[in-house]
């Protein structure tokens, strides 16, 4: 019984914390993000397992966590409101070739982050080539390039 309760509490705690931290916090953008994930998992593992090192305990915790995730994904599919609450919504950072300054500031992003995404995905280095940039729910930035021949500017 303890194992299930602990797993549910840890799931809720981490969900709340990561949601409050923002999309970009643990999107593996820097090396330190990875280090942070490792440290967090280390810190939480004792709370999750308690002083019970049995195989049964580990199995119950893992099953509970996976089941919670499946249940939540089913609920999210049925209710867009719940999905927005848990996963957030995609956010427009660049529209019609112009940056949305407020959105970028709120998500603690700047033009360099968008340019980095443009370089990685499209090999594009100039701001002028970017038509749209969207901060996805996963924390990744997707970039849509300007179609040069038909573009106005």
């Amino acid at each position, binding site marked *: *019984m303890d194992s299930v309760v602990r797993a549910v509490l840890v799931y809720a705690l981490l969900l709340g914390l990561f949601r409050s931290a923002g999309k970009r916090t643990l999107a593996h953008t820097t090396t330190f993000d990875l280090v942070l994930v490792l440290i967090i998992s280390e810190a939480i593992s004792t709370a999750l397992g308690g002083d019970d090192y*049995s*195989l*049964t*305990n580990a199995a119950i915790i893992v*099953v*509970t966590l*996976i*089941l919670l995730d499946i249940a939540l994904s089913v609920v999210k599919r049925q209710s867009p409101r719940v999905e927005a609450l848990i996963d957030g919504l995609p956010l427009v950072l660049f529209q019609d070739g112009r940056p949305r300054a407020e959105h970028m500031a709120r998500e603690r992003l700047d033009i360099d982050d968008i340019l980095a995404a443009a370089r990685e995905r499209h090999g594009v280095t100039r701001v002028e080539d970017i038509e749209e940039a969207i901060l996805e729910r996963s924390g990744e930035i997707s970039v849509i390039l300007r179609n040069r021949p038909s573009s106005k500017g």
Partner: protein
Amino acid sequence: MAVSLHQGVAEVKEQLDSAAVAVFQQRVWRAQRVAWALMALIVLAAVAGLLGPGPLSSRTVTSADGAFRVDYARFLRRGTRTTLRIHVRPATAEASTLALWLARSYLETMKVDGVVPPPGRVQAGPDRMTWSFEVNPQPGKPLTVTFHLLPEGSGGLRAEVGLGTGPTLGFRQWVYP
């Protein structure tokens, strides 16, 4: 080159679209649903106490003459502490010493991690280990002795507890790995 590549893509697409793939995918989905149901059952069993501590795991047995009763957990986990609470009826504990024993066969798998209150004397016999306590009984109030135990193996266990040379009690426990 481009044409052959195109043909390759078409072939792959055809393969992926085939009825055999669809049937396989249906099976995978069905198997997944079954697995989810099993996982839900595991979680329910864990909450109920069938896989370790919980409401369905806590049991009490009373000796035939009512001299003492034992609170124990039916389902344990290997390497995780459990307690055996032995409540002795005051009439039986009127003497100034109280002797309780556990079967040696039980203690082969169960490590005694502590006894509360601390015993005055521990005696080892061929089949039994006896703990003797100095007691100060009060009429109407049962005396309680708690054994903190650590299961060091897994599987079924048969426990035997007794009061001095008097009544004995036996019960079964299951230790999950």
